């Protein structure tokens, strides 16, 4: 051993000791962020309205929505991990199913015998469950699988919205029939359409990748499709083989819409291999948009246990997995939300991940789109509540207070069970080990009734002019602690305010009605494709307007882009119409619609406080 050196400079030693203690104290102080709180204090609705320009009220029961999600019960072989494995399936999609001009809600259930619900909005704003009569309720049957999510599109361009339900099991395509009596009825056309293929899917999105006007379908596999999770035939090696680089998940599939067959029923063709857009990462979320502005819709995937993937559409001929700064940033992607966060006219991406004090900080990503600058996606989520929401799931962008900046809603919480018993340590045991250990569910400790990041509240992140976000959830009235999964936004009653619909795992469907400061302007656009798919999924509107940040303030020029949602977030789909908050004293210069057909259409000076119905004017 080294001969000990005599201490020198006792004063210096004392100074160093004091600085050392200061280092420790400073770390403690910094951890608590005393100087930059990013969470607004709770208050009354009136205070929220005055301070933030909006307030939320949960009105599900009051509007007639009474729905509770039921979770799947799987092969007894998975009993030790079933609360974990089966903790998905609460999903929500919004579309005008009955064509009455009012948004309707479709919510999924995930246990055999428990029906899905189609809540049709009535003229008085209340909702009525018409799923059973319409034939879209009893989709969760033994041997057929259970629902994990749904997306709407007019697959045959006949003017009504059809429904696709992706499942752990056989996916179902339900065609909306035009019944002369006005009764809403759907027919299962999965088999003739060529879609009856067992998948364990937790994500799907519509994308007209070839611009032929027929909407195509991208479905993401999560668990490998060879597994029937109710009958594993003794197989327990079903899990991911890495927590950061797993690629042993299910295959993703791109189905091309071929139009109607000789029998008049829709036909789809699997073009995944030809288009080179497969992935066996554990994809949980998909969104389609023209991210690079080349006029072709691309795909953005959030993968659990692995990096995100961006498939660039090469003129409808193939997709290429583009190196855009995603491949080295491996996390647990849960959700893909699209928004123009800087009012720069770009489609940025927010991907949720997992964070838990002491154990894991994966952090959510806010990826600013710099593709037009010849770069990739830049993650600008650095710290605070934007990064660490807990175990985050569904998310969506929307201007909740009509100030002209897109805000963000993030749902959180994985398994809320016994508050006193926690599973994080048990999970960390296998998570730190070799992949072939935790690939086998037998090596996972029984979770029992323990919680895993349970009782985490939702976040409502108010954009402060695109510079940073402030969590105002508690202040504006979003206080529930359910295990949130899917969130979709819609102006449910046509009031110029975006409402929230939240699907909770093993919990109730919630409807948060939004009350916005009436002094703030807004506009929305309901698009209908002609050369493009009739639902206009994938179309974007870039709005240019002039408005002030506050009443009486000097107006400034603004630009913002929104995309018609073919499925995004986590297992959710927003209302078709695009809502723009505008701020005070707004005057719109123009709106540029970029249709999936590649056609651009300019609307000059459309009026504010109006929903504009826009029909594609392409030849």
């Amino acid at each position, binding site marked *: *051993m*080294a*001969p*000990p*050196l005599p*201490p*020198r*400079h006792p004063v210096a*030693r004392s100074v*160093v*000791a004091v*600085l*050392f203690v200061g*280092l*420790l104290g*400073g*770390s*403690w102080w*910094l*951890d*608590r962020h005393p100087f930059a709180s990013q969470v607004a204090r709770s208050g009354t609705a009136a205070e929220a309205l005055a301070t933030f320009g909006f307030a939320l009220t949960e009105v599900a029961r009051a509007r007639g929505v009474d729905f509770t999600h039921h979770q799947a019960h799987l092969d007894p072989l998975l009993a030790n991990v079933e609360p974990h494995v089966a903790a998905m399936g609460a999903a929500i999609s919004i579309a005008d199913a009955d064509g009455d001009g009012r948004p309707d809600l479709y919510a999924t259930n995930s246990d055999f015998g428990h029906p899905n619900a189609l809540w049709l909005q009535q003229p008085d704003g209340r909702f009525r469950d018409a799923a059973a009569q319409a034939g879209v309720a009893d989709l969760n049957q033994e041997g057929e699988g259970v629902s994990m999510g749904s997306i709407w599109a007019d697959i045959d361009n006949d003017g009504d919205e059809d429904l696709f339900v992706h499942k752990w099991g056989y996916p179902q395509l339900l065609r909306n029939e035009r019944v002369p009596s006005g009764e809403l009825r759907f027919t299962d056309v999965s088999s003739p359409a060529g879609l009856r293929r067992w998948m364990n899917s937790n994500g799907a999105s519509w994308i007209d990748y070839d611009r032929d006007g027929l909407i195509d379908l991208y479905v993401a596999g999560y668990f490998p499709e060879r597994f029937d999770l109710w009958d594993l035939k003794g197989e327990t090696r079903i899990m991911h*083989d*890495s*927590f*950061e*680089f797993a690629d042993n998940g299910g295959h993703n599939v791109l189905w091309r819409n071929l139009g109607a067959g000789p029998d008049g029923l829709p036909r789809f063709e699997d073009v995944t291999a030809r288009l080179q857009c497969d992935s066996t990462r554990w994809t949980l979320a998909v969104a389609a948009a023209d991210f690079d502005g080349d006029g072709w819709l691309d795909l953005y995937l959030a993968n659990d246990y692995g990096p995100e993937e961006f498939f660039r559409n090469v003129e409808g001929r193939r997709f290429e997995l583009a190196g855009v700064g995603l491949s*080295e*940033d*491996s996390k647990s992607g849960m959700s893909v939300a699209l928004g123009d966060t800087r009012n720069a006219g770009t489609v940025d991406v927010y991907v949720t991940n997992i*964070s838990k*004090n*002491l*154990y*894991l*900080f994966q*952090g959510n990503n806010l990826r600013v789109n710099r593709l037009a600058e010849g770069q990739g996606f830049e993650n600008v*989520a*650095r*710290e605070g509540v934007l*990064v*660490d929401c807990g175990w985050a799931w569904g998310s969506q962008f929307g201007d909740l207070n009509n100030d002209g900046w897109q805000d963000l809603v993030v749902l959180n919480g994985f398994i809320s069970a016994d508050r*006193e*018993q926690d599973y994080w*340590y*048990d999970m*960390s*045991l*296998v*998570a*730190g*080990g*070799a*992949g*072939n*250990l*935790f690939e086998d569910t*037998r*090596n996972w*400790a*029984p979770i029992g009734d323990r919680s895993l990041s349970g009782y985490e509240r939702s976040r409502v992140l108010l954009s402060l002019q695109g510079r940073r976000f402030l969590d105002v959830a508690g202040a504006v009235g979003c206080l529930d602690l359910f295990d949130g999964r899917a969130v979709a936004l819609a102006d449910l009653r046509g009031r110029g305010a975006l409402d929230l619909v939240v699907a909770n795992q093993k919990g109730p469907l919630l409807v948060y009605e939004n009350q916005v400061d009436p002094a703030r302007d807004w506009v929305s656009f309901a698009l209908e494709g002609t050369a493009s798919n009739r639902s206009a999924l994938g179309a974007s509107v870039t709005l240019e307007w002039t408005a002030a940040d506050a009443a009486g303030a000097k107006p400034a020029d603004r630009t913002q882009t929104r995309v018609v949602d073919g499925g995004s977030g986590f297992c959710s789909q927003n209302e078709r119409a695009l809502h723009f908050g505008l701020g005070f004293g707004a005057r719109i210069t123009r709106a540029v619609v970029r249709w999936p057909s590649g056609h651009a259409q300019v609307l000059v000076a459309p009026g504010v406080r109006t929903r504009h119905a826009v029909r594609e004017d392409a030849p």
Partner: protein
Amino acid sequence: MTGASPGATPVTAGATAPRRGLRLPNLPAKYYSVTLITLILVVGQFVGGIVGGFDIVATCLGLSLGLELLMGRLLRGAWPSLLSAYISGNSVAILTKPSGELLWPYAAGALISIASKYVLTYRNRHLWNPTNFSFSVLLLLAPGSMSLLSHQWGNGAATWVVMAVGLLVVWRAKVLPITLAYVAAFAALAWPRSLLTGREWLTELAPLTGPMYMLLIFFMLTDPRTVVRSTRGRVTVVVLIALLEALIRLLPQTDMRVLDPLLSAPAIFALAVVGPIAMVLDLKKEAAEKRARTSTVPVPA
């Protein structure tokens, strides 16, 4: 994660290097440690981007090396060797996983590691492995900002390459018994833990196969400046560390919720408790032995 103080006598591998079989360059063992930590950094970054960015490495290394120079000159009047600080800086860069893109946990980790060597001393020897100390206190003081690398690197060959090189390094440094004793004790104690918790034995063994444990068994446990002198003593200490770690891992079977933070890094906390106690006892024993030798030396007439 060695914490060799300036002036420490390096463990020289060349003096006893085997003449037959595997022949390695005749270098002091700490150079092999430096090579290994660099290998882990580079492979980890290449395979999985585990470090995150140049700014992180620059912060950790810059602060570690800078503070080492400053402290050495200021407190001991000599320019210190920087190998130890280099290893500490790299270890902080690899193992620290902060919330978001916070940089300060890296900076704090690097500064606390180096400073602890000069502040927390006994008989002019530091007691804690520097990074072990900084990780322990930061996990307790800043749980909302700081976690340790807990995931695995993937299933490729890189893990096994690092493992093989690590074993080679600890063999050259003559601390292989420490590594093997700890692994054996962990594996053995996993069995009763398995029985008590109802988990599979493989589940209890799983952490050993992760990168955090590689850094633990190749660097922290074998830090030549914070291990006791005798081989038997070293083996005893790591067995005690494994034992305390096993007890920490059994905390969920108790009602002691206040100790739950220890579950986030049981081995780190076990080393932080057992290591310094062993060092104090060893230093006391060394002093007593020195006094005894002095008293028995015949005084020349």
